[in-house]
C-alpha cells in the first residue's frame, strides 16, 4: 500500500517516501565540501557548539558511543579519542558519500581500531537494545523524516542510565537576533553554497529545514514522549543552536 502521507522538505511539501531520497541527494552533493562549508557558514562557530557538547557529555574511557547522522565525523573523532581502545564508537549515517569522506579522513588522521562506520537510517537502527552508553546526533535530526521514530530508536539502543545528546539548530530567543539570522540565512548562505560548493539549491534546503525543525520546548516534549527523563536544553548563540540532553532511566 503506497504511503500518501506528506512531510516537509525545507519549505516544500513532499511525500514521506520521497524525503529520504531528496535528503540523500542533498548530502551526496555537498559531501566533499561539507567541512569547509560548515566553517564558512557558521564562521567556525560549529566547532564551539560541538566543543560544548563534548563538555556536557560525560563520555568516559571504555564507553560505547553511537554517533547518528555522523556525517564527516567531527564528533565521532572526539569520542574516539575519549573512549580509547577499551571503548567503541559507531559512526552511523544514512548517506554513503558522507561516510566515505569520514572514513578517508579518519584513515588520514590515523584514527583506527575503535571506530566502526555503519550505513543506517536513524528511524530503524540495526543495533541491539541497550547496547550503547551514549547516543549523539549533531545537526542531523532535522533531516530525519519521522523524528519520533528516531527518538524511540535512540531510546531503545541506550543502556539504562545512558544519555542522548541532540545538537541542532533551533529558534533564536530574541526577535532582533531572529531578524538578522533570517537575513543572513536566506540571503547569504545559498550564495555561499553556490560560490564554494557550486550548489545553491542544497544550501537553500538546509536553511529552510532549520525553520521547519521543532523549537526548543517542542523537541524537549518529544524527547519526554519517547521516554527520556531529566530532559533539559542549553541555548547556544542566542538560541540559534540548542543542545538537548536526556537520560534513559
Amino acid at each position, binding site marked *: 500500500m503506497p504511503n500518501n502521507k506528506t512531510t516537509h522538505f525545507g519549505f516544500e511539501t513532499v511525500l514521506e517516501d520521497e524525503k529520504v531520497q531528496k535528503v540523500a541527494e542533498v548530502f551526496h552533493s555537498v559531501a566533499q565540501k561539507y567541512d569547509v562549508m560548515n566553517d564558512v557558514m557558521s564562521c567556525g562557530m560549529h566547532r564551539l557548539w560541538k*566543543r560544548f557538547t563534548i*563538555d*556536557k557529555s*560525560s563520555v568516559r574511557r571504555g564507553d560505547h558511543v553511537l554517533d547518528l547522522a555522523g556525517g564527516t565525523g567531527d564528533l565521532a573523532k572526539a569520542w574516539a579519542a*575519549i573512549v*580509547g581502545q577499551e571503548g567503541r564508537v559507531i559512526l552511523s549515517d544514512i548517506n554513503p558519500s558522507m561516510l566515505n569522506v569520514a572514513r578517508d579522513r579518519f584513515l588520514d588522521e590515523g584514527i583506527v581500531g575503535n571506530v566502526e562506520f555503519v550505513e543506517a537510517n536513524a528511524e530503524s537502527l540495526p543495533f541491539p537494545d541497550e547496547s550503547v552508553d551514549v547516543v549523539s546526533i549533531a545537526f542531523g535530526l532535522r533531516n530525519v523524516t519521522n523524528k519520533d521514530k528516531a527518538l524511540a530508536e535512540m531510546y531503545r539502543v541506550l543502556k539504562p542510565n545512558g544519555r542522548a545528546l541532540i545538537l541542532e539548530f533551533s529558534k533564536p530567543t530574541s526577535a532582533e537576533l531572529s531578524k538578522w539570522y533570517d537575513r543572513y540565512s536566506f540571503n547569504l548562505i545559498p550564495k555561499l553554497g553556490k560560490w564554494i560548493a557550486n550548489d545553491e539549491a542544497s544550501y537553500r534546503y538546509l536553511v529552510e529545514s532549520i525553520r521547519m525543525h521543532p523549537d526548543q520546548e517542542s523537541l524537549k516534549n518529544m524527547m519526554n514522549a519517547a521516554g527520556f527523563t531529566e530532559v533539559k536544553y542549553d541555548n547556544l548563540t542566542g538560541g540559534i543552536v540548542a543542545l538537548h540532553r536526556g537520560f534513559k532511566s
Partner: protein
Amino acid sequence: MIKSTLYYALETTINALLRRSTTSQPLLEKLDNAVIQLTITDWQLNLFWIFNADKIRLVSEWDHPVTSSISGELIAITRLGLSGAKVAKDLTVSGDLHQVELFKRLFAELHIDWQAELTPFIGAGKTHTIEIELKKIASGLRNIARSLRESSKDYMQEESRILPTRFEFDEFSQSVRQLQRRIEKISHPQSNHKH
C-alpha cells in the same frame, strides 16, 4: 559555551606543558582513571579533571562518581600548585587523599627544559643568551624586592618614631579646644557680661 571553550584551551595548554615536563609522566600514570572535582567557591566554578593515561581532560559537568574533590577559594587553590606548600587548611578535601597529593605534585614539580624547547627554533647560542638575560632580570627583580622590603622596614620604624602616640595626640587636641574657647571669650566680651 565560552566556559567550555576556555576549559578546552586550558586543557590543551596543560597537556602541552605536561608533555614537555620531565617529571610528569610517572605522576600521570599513578593518576590514571582518577577524576578530581575542583570547586572554586568564590567564583562558583566547578572543574572536573579526568586523568587518562598520559593526558588530562577538563570538563564543567560530570555525571559519574568522582574519586576525590578539592574545594576552596581561588587563592587557596592557586597555592596548591606551589612547590613545597602543604595542602592548605583553607581547602576542603575529600575522597582519595593520596590522589590529591599526587595532583598537587603534578604542578608543583613541573619541570620543563625550556632550552631544549627553544633551541630548534632559534639555535643554541641565542637560547643561551636569552637564558642569561632572563636570569639577570630575575636576579634584578629579586634585588628590588629585597630592597623594598628592607626600605619599608626602615621607613616604618622611622615613621613610628616620629609619629605622636595616641595620648600625645589627645592631649594636643584638648589644648587646641581650650585655646579655642578662650579666643571665643575674648572676641565676644558682651555675651560674657550678660551672662
